[in-house]
């Protein structure tokens, strides 16, 4: 049977191209995901572990334990200091020890100040991770070595004199003039790699760290040759315990790396899990494409299989021949997928290393898991998907070989079990979704989605062919190619369902994300609109007033629509600062125009209760103001100048002379400003008014930040889902080209009877567009429903949801699907049209 399977693969190799491509992309996705994880871990090993990579043992503090025991205030139980160092040194079998201490210092070089991390270098070669590029390692308390990256960046060379300084725990400032003795290779350790690295001698460390005892981050040990390291752990442990230490660990470098990575990469695993979910989606779609392909391949080979049966092939032999084919295709395609993933990852990492400085230590790691898991998964998916078609092949009767190929309509009876099960899933899932949306519980809603979507897919055979048929009838326009296309599209409902389902999955998920994101954005906009009545607020708490010409310049800045100047005039009884402004200018900067305080009213934040506020002006006059409470939870109480004058006795003139005078600005900016433009505006305003940038804030900034985050997530997720859509579109092309093969005689007949080449191509294109378009349309509808319900259940917790449908994006999804389906029809249609009518009639 292997021979037969091989012969089939060879003979019909072209028919396997698409299925191979689909499996390849699916497994490449999975492999790449696993490689991301492995590479991240490997990269961390090369960096975190670099400081102790060559040591024999590493002794570190056990932070968690001393916290848990409540001993964090007793340094003698956990701080590794010179005493501990000495204790270890005296243990038999220890050749050398080094405590790597690290302090932060300020460095003044060339008139500018930098932050640097200073470490002591080990004298023992085995324990030193410092590599000299030029010069010499520092000796004494007046020399340092500096790492190559920062030396280059700050233009520091051997022989330069730097001033380094630090503040001790006791608050004493210490500074030293030091000479650069050497340049060291840049560190890979992310703990220290982000700042300038200085290597210093022990005496300089002692001088800088003051009278307190030095604390080492870790102590590395070099053992004498031939000593059993595990055996050395016990004497070191007891020696340390002898000094009063309780919370520490003695590990080999390998053990330490595992622990450090676990502490460092907690988020890494979550990323992997999320990526794996997408890889799984891609694989499910792949499975549908494979199933369809094999079903068609079997249908085409019915006579051949029947001949085999006539010649004495057992049913089981027929089945295994099909399964062997699937196994071979799956294996080859999966292996190709892993190779593809390796190539892509290698290229990506190369680009990363070359373009992103922080990523210069990134390393590609292909662990056995990243190779084996995708190959096994890809092969298994292919086999499982081929199982049903293989069963069908097994049931071919020997007599079928003797009958002419008949094209009797293929009845597809959806399994009753599947329908019932699907309906149950949909019902349960929909109920959970509705409940989750009503109660604002995303977990329940998510569960509902996870339940109902497979249910919808199971019921696909009930509605997909019917919809295709109905839309086809509506759009055929009465032309023969159109009519034939819509009939052909549902000729084999099972195949149509599987093809459309593959596309439906991707489109549903993509449009769910789009609608969800858009609605979340709109809801946040609405929430932030009432919470932040003001787009931008300039509030420099140090208490300044701004010169009129600066204000005029700010108001004239690109993107600034209007500006209101609020002046402090007093304070409320509860201690809130009270501001006065011109009601007219307030009207133009508030996002809600109805909330301009009238005479005797004060605009206040939602944190205020009651109806009135007692306030005292700077002159000492007290008045009772009626509160206009807003939804904003951070708002300076504001009144009109007329109210300030009449009720609090403060005028513009009187305030100008007051020592407490300070101004807050409220700005309205263009809605269209993007994130980058807002940042520039923020910097420009801060610059013009001579305040720190953080003094310029407000709702528009926060809104932009949310929008940026949501857009970024949407882009990433859509990109990941695009893989599933791509595989599904390969499926459309595949189904169509196999249908063309299957209908060679029929197409030839039509050509003989007067169907032109153009009409034939149009017919096939229409068929593809019908299947693709209907799948996309239903996917967008389904996805929108999921997106809205999902957004409702997330936003429900924060307040009212603002429904917002990204029409243009959704139309784009449908357009892309239709165009892609059209493109998918080109190759099969050309092949069909190339055939002379008589050739097709002659073929079986």
């Amino acid at each position, binding site marked *: 049977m292997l021979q037969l399977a091989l012969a089939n693969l060879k003979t019909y190799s072209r028919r396997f191209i698409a299925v191979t491509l689909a499996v390849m992309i699916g497994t490449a996705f999975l492999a790449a995901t696993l490689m991301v994880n492995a590479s991240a871990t490997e990269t961390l090993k090369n960096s975190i572990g670099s400081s102790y990579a060559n040591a024999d043992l590493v002794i570190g503090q056990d932070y968690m334990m001393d916290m848990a025991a409540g001993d964090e205030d007793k340094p003698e139980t956990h701080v590794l200091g010179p005493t501990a160092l000495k204790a270890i040194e005296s243990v038999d079998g220890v050749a050398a020890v080094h405590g790597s201490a690290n302090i932060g210092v300020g460095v003044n070089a060339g008139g500018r100040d930098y932050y640097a991390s200073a470490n002591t270098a080990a004298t023992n070669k085995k324990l030193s991770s410092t590599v000299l590029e030029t010069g010499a390692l520092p000796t004494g308390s007046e020399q340092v070595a500096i790492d190559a990256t920062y030396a280059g960046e700050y233009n520091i060379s051997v022989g330069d004199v730097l001033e380094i300084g630090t503040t001790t725990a006791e608050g004493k400032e210490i500074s030293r003039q030091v000479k650069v003795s050497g340049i060291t290779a840049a560190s890979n350790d992310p703990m220290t790699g982000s700042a300038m690295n200085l290597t210093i001698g022990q005496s300089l460390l002692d001088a800088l760290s003051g009278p307190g005892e030095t604390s080492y981050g870790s102590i590395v040990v070099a053992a004498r040759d031939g000593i059993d390291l595990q055996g050395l752990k016990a004497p070191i442990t007891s020696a340390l315990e002898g000094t009063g230490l309780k919370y520490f660990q003695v590990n080999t470098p390998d053990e330490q790396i595992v622990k450090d990575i676990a502490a460092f990469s907690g988020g890494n695993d979550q990323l992997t899990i999320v990526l794996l979910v997408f890889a799984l989606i891609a694989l499910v779609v792949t499975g549908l494409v494979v199933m369809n392909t094999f079903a068609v391949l079997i249908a085409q080979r019915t006579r051949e299989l029947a001949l085999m049966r006539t010649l004495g092939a057992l049913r089981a032999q027929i089945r295994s021949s099909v399964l062997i084919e699937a196994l071979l295709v799956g294996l080859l395609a999966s292996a190709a997928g892993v190779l593809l993933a390796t190539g892509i990852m290698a290229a990506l990492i190369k680009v990363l290393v070359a373009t992103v400085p922080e990523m210069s230590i990134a390393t590609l790691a292909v662990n056995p898991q990243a190779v084996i898991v995708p190959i096994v998964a890809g092969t298994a998916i292919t086999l499982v998907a081929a199982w049903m078609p293989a069963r069908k092949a097994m049931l071919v009767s020997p007599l079928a070989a003797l009958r*002419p190929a008949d094209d009797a309509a293929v009845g597809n009876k959806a399994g009753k079990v599947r329908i019932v099960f699907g309906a149950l899933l949909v019902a349960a899932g929909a109920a959970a979704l509705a409940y989750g949306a009503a109660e604002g519980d995303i977990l329940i809603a998510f569960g509902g989605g996870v339940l109902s979507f497979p249910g919808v897919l199971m019921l696909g055979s009930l509605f997909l062919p019917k919809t295709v048929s109905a839309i086809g009838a509506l759009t055929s326009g009465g032309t023969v190619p159109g009519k*034939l296309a819509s009939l052909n599209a549902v000729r084999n409902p099972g195949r149509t369902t599987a093809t459309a389902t593959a596309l439906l999955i991707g489109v549903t998920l993509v449009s769910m994300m789009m609608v969800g994101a858009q609605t979340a954005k709109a809801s946040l906009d609405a929430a932030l609109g009432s919470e932040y009545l003001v787009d931008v607020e300039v509030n420099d708490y140090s208490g300044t007033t701004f010169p009129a010409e600066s204000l005029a310049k700010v108001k004239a800045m690109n993107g600034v629509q209007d500006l209101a100047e609020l002046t402090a005039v007093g304070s409320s009884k509860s201690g809130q600062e009270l501001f006065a402004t011109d009601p007219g200018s307030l009207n133009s900067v508030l996002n809600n125009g109805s909330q301009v305080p009238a005479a005797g009213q004060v605009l206040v934040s939602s944190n205020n209760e009651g109806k009135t506020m007692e306030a005292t002006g700077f002159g000492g006059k007290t008045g009772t103001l009626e509160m206009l409470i807003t939804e904003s939870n951070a708002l300076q109480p504001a009144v009109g100048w007329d109210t300030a004058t009449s009720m609090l006795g403060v005028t513009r003139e009187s305030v100008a002379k007051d020592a407490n005078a300070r101004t807050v600005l409220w700005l309205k900016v263009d809605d269209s400003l993007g994130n980058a433009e807002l940042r520039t505006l923020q910097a420009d305003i801060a610059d013009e008014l001579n305040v720190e940038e953080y003094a310029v804030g407000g709702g528009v900034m926060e809104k932009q930040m949310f929008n940026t985050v949501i857009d970024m997530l949407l882009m990433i997720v859509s990109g990941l889902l695009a893989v599933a859509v791509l595989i599904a579109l390969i499926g459309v092309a595949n189904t169509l080209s196999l249908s063309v093969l299957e209908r060679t005689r*029929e197409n030839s007949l*039509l*050509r003989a009877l*007067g*169907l032109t*080449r153009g009409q034939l191509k149009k017919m096939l294109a229409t068929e593809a567009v019908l299947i693709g378009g209907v799948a996309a349309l239903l996917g967008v509808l389904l996805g929108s429903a999921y997106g809205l319900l999902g957004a409702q259940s997330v936003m429900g917790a924060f307040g009212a949801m603002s429904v917002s449908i990204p029409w243009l994006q959704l139309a784009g999804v449908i357009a892309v699907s239709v165009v892609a389906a059209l493109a998918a029809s080109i190759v099969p249609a050309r092949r069909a049209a190339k055939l002379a009518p*008589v050739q097709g009639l002659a073929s079986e």
Partner: protein
Amino acid sequence: MTITAPHTSTDFAVHATNLTKIYGEGTTRVEALRGVDVSFVRGKFTAIMGPSGSGKSTLMHCLAGLDDANDGQILIGGTDISKLNDDALTKMRREKVGFVFQSFNLVPTLTAEANILLPLALAGKKHDKAWLETIVATLGLGDRLNHKPHELSGGQQQRVAVARALLTRPEVVFGDEPTGNLDSRTGAEVLSLLRSSTREMGQTIIMVTHDAVAASYADTVLLMKDGELVGQLEDPTVETVTQALSGLGA
């Protein structure tokens, strides 16, 4: 237009000169047609016979514009089809030629009626209702029009194909073993229908067959061997046809 044909072209529904068709190259080279000159008189039922590999099917395919000849000229109703591009050739087939094949005559997704109307629908033309009714009644298909092909018997399927071929009143109807898949009684029925369409409607029919009984329904039998026309029988009977064939060594 100047045509250097020996006869006035209007006498013939189909007229071919020096028709040559070669398959393959080198050692696999086969001359299926070796410069065939043939004319088919309007309103006659002609059968083309010959042993397997004689080139009779190739001749029919070339005459019908289903296949390109390597050399020669073919006139259908006075039109030189050898110079037409694919689209024009396709339209010519729609309007001037009808087909009845041995099997797989009908589009499986369409009803019998839709199949009959297919060539006209492809051309975007209205059909002659009275003519359709006449044909349907003559062929006894009245109660079968809304059935799909797989719901029809083999004889019914061939009758639908005949109806389709006749509906456009084509210049010529080509039959490629039209009774090859039918039992003798049903086959006789279909052949009688074809003959009566010649006698009563003046329809020109060219049929390829290797069955002497089928050929005996024709007005003329042309005999082929090794890509050449080798003989002709008028008013054939089963006996004369069988005799002629055995003379060819078939």
